[in-house]
């Protein structure tokens, strides 16, 4: 004959058993529970704030970092400007070539 035990019975059994534990064991279990809860509490915000922390790391903190960031941004902007200027220069050269080439303009225009 098998005895069916549901979750309520398990909980009752555990409560009865815990009453039989000595105070040292009880406090050790209570400590372990508290530590587990603390870890869980820390982990939850860590997940939600992980993106924020990542972006926070991108913001320069020291003067030197601000200077390095400034230089990097200046180089990027200058490079973009130079690239744009070079592109425009090339377009202008081609335009003049099309407008002055021996071949009629209709050859290049649809």
């Amino acid at each position, binding site marked *: 004959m098998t005895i069916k035990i549901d979750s309520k019975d398990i909980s009752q059994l555990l409560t009865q058993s815990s009453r039989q534990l000595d105070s040292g064991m009880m406090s050790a279990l209570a400590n372990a529970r508290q530590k587990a809860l603390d870890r869980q509490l820390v982990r939850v915000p860590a997940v939600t704030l992980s993106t924020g922390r990542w972006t926070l790391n991108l913001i*320069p903190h020291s003067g*030197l970092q*601000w200077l390095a960031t400034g230089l990097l941004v200046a180089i990027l902007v200058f490079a973009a400007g130079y690239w744009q200027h070079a592109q425009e220069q090339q377009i*202008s050269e081609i335009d*003049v070539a099309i*407008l*002055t080439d021996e071949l009629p303009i209709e050859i290049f*225009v649809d």
Partner: protein
Amino acid sequence: MFKKLFLTGLLFLPFLAGKPVSAAPETWKSLTHGQQEALAPLAEQWDSLPEIQQHRLLKTAIRYPHLTIEEQQRFQERLIVWSKLTPEQRQAAREKYKAFEKVPEKQREQVKQMIKQEREQTIGSEKAIPGNDNR
């Protein structure tokens, strides 16, 4: 201090990047004599041209004084047709020109000769039409 410098520097970055492509529109009257001479065929429609087109035409006008007389003539003859094209057509023409530039010199010369001959034939046949005869 560096943070303040950085933020102030950000305000000046657009100037570091050089002159933007879409500069303020220039009226025909504001152009120099040299620019007006090079772009003379566009005098009437100049003020109504898009800014970017004006900017690019002005860049081409810089090279005008350095062209041969024959090239200057072609330049001005083609300006009206060129300015009437859509930006997409002009871009397609540039792509075609770049592709043609990649063709070996010998083949390019052959194409040029072929087109020259065709043009001469067309002119010849036009002259042969009785209506065009000046006798």
